[in-house]
C-alpha cells in the first residue's frame, strides 16, 4: 500500500500582482512547439516554459515539490505532456481551486496527484501559504497542514476512481489489475 501522505516544499504560482495566476493553459505549461516529444525524461525541461515569470521553474524545482496554482489550471488542449512534464520533474502534487476538465482526467489517468482546494486564494492573501513553505497532505482524507506556519489546510478528498488509479499507478495498471480480479 502506498502512503496517502505526501509532503513537500511548495511553489505558489503567483503573477506580477502577487496573485495566483488563473486560467494557465496547456500552451503555457508545455508549449505546442514540443509536442513531438514522446520521452518522459525529456519533458521536464519544458514545464511552465511559456508562463511569464516561471520559465526557469525546471531548474529550480526538485523531486517531491508541490505546486500551488490558480483556478482552471491546465485549461486548453488535451496534451498529456502538460501532466507528464511534472511527472518528469517528479513533482509531488499540484493543488488548485479547479482544473481544466481534460487536464484533470489526464492527471488522474497518469496516477499523478492533483487536488482541489477552494480556500487557496484566501490562504495566500492572508500570508498563510508562501513559496518555500513545507506542507503535508493526506490525499485520501483531504486533510493537510502547513508545517512551517503550523496552519491546517483542507483539500477536497480524491474520489474513489481517482484514488484507486493513483494507488495502482494509473489507468494502465488499473486495467491490468481489473483483468486479474
Amino acid at each position, binding site marked *: 500500500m502506498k502512503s496517502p501522505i505526501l509532503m513537500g516544499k511548495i511553489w505558489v504560482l503567483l503573477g506580477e500582482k502577487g496573485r495566483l495566476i488563473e486560467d494557465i493553459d496547456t500552451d503555457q505549461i508545455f508549449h505546442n512547439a514540443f509536442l513531438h516529444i514522446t520521452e518522459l525524461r525529456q519533458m521536464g525541461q519544458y514545464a511552465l516554459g511559456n508562463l511569464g515569470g516561471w520559465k526557469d521553474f525546471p531548474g529550480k524545482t526538485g523531486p517531491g515539490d508541490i505546486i500551488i496554482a490558480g483556478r482552471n489550471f491546465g485549461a486548453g488542449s*488535451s496534451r*498529456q505532456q502538460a501532466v507528464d512534464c511534472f511527472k518528469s520533474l517528479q513533482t509531488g502534487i499540484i493543488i488548485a481551486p479547479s482544473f481544466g476538465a481534460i487536464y484533470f482526467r489526464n492527471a488522474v489517468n497518469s496516477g499523478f496527484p492533483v487536488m482541489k482546494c477552494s480556500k487557496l486564494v484566501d490562504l495566500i492573501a492572508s500570508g498563510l501559504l508562501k513559496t518555500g513553505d513545507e506542507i503535508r497532505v493526506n490525499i485520501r482524507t483531504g486533510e493537510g497542514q502547513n508545517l512551517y506556519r503550523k496552519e491546517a489546510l483542507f483539500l477536497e478528498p480524491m474520489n474513489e476512481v481517482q484514488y484507486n488509479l493513483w494507488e495502482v499507478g494509473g*489507468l494502465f495498471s488499473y486495467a491490468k489489475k481489473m483483468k486479474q480480479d
Partner: protein
Amino acid sequence: MGYTIIEKIIRGHTDEEVRTGEIVWMDLDVRSARDFGGPNVVKNFYREFGDTPVSDRSKTFFTFDLCVPACTLQYADNQQVCRDFARGRGIKVFDVDEGIGSHVLIERGLAAAGSTVVGTDSHMNILGAVGCFGQGMGDVDITFAFKTGKTWFQVPESLKVFVRGEPSSGLSAKDLTLSIVKQLGTKKAALKSVEFYGAAVRNLSISGRITLCSMVTEMAGITGFIPEFKDSVASEIKSLSGEEFNHPHADKDAVYSDNITIDIDGLGPQVAAPFLPTNVKNVGDLGRVKIDSGFIGSCTNGRFEDLKAAARILKGKKVKEGVMLKIVPATRKVYKQLLEEGILKDLFESGAIISNAGCGGCAQGHIGLTGKGEVQISTGNRNFEGKQGKGQNYLASPEVVAASCILGHIAGPEDI
C-alpha cells in the same frame, strides 16, 4: 426526475446508474488519435499491450490534421509510426490530405447524433453541433479506449443557456459565440455540459453550430448542444453524412445546475483581444488596431460557409499591401466545394494565401504563426500568449478578418 442531453447519451452507453457527479464506465462508438498525441498512443499501446489488436478496428481511426504534410523530420517520423501501427491492425487513417479530424468524422457520418466519440483534440466537443458527445482526451485515455472501447466519465452537471434577442442583420455565428464566451467567462460553464436554446441559436447552420460548440472549450465547459434546429440543418447533416439527424432531447423535468439568459439584442461584430478568448469587445470600441496578418480557418471557422462569407467581402478587392491573409479550409471536401463554386479564385485574386486543408492557426507546425510584435486577426478559438508565436492574436469572425485585411486595421464588414 428527467434527464439532460448528456445524461441521456451516457445512459445509452452504460449499464450503470447515471447520476450527476457519479463516475460511470461507458462505451465509446468512435475513438481516434491525431498526429499530436497519436504517436504517444502508439508508444503507450506497444508498451502496455504489446503486439495485440485493438478492441474494434472499425471504430478506431487516426486523423492527421496538425502538421500536414509533415514539415519536420520529427512529425514525419511520428506520422509514419501511426501509419505502421494502423496498417498492422487494419485501422483506417484519414491521412494528411483529409483535413481536421473532427470535421472529417462529421462528414463521414462517424459522429452520429446520440453517439460517443473521443480523440486527442480538445475541441472534439464541436461534435455537439451534430448532437454527438465528443470528448477530447490525452494519450493515456485514448490508448485505453483503443484497447478496451471504454472510458470512465464523471457525469457532468448541465447548464441551460437561453439566448434571447435578435442580433443585428448579417451577424455571424462567431460574433454570437464570442458574445456568449464573454458573458459566460470561464466560470459559469466550467466542467458542465451546456444546452443552448433560443431563436438565434436555433437558426444556426451546421457551420455556425460548430463555431459555437467548439468554443465551449474556451468557456471551460465539457461540451455543448443545440437541440433545436431548422429542417434545413437536418437535411444538411443528412447530405453531409448520409445519416438521418435525430438530435437527443432533454426531458421536460431534467435537472440543471443553473439557467442563464444571455441577451444578444442588437449585437454587432465582436473581437476577443489578446491574450484571452474571454476578453471580448465590440469591434467599434476597439480603437484603431493596425494588423500585420489575418488568418481564416481552424475547427471553429474553417467550413465552406465561413470561407464563402469571407469571399463575399474580399471579392473584387485586394488585401492591403503589407498584410498577409492566410486561409486554411477545414477539410478536403470544403476545399473541393470552394474550387467548384469559384470561391477559391475570388480568395486567390484578393491576394490571400490558401493552403491545403488542416488545423492551421493553432500550433507550431502549420500556417498561422506570428513573429514578435506581429498583430494578427484570426478566426481561431484561442489567443493565449505565446500560443501561435510571439505576436498578438485577436479572434473574430471570417467577415471581420476579411474586412480588416482589406483595410489594414481591425474593422467590421460595414466599414468596407
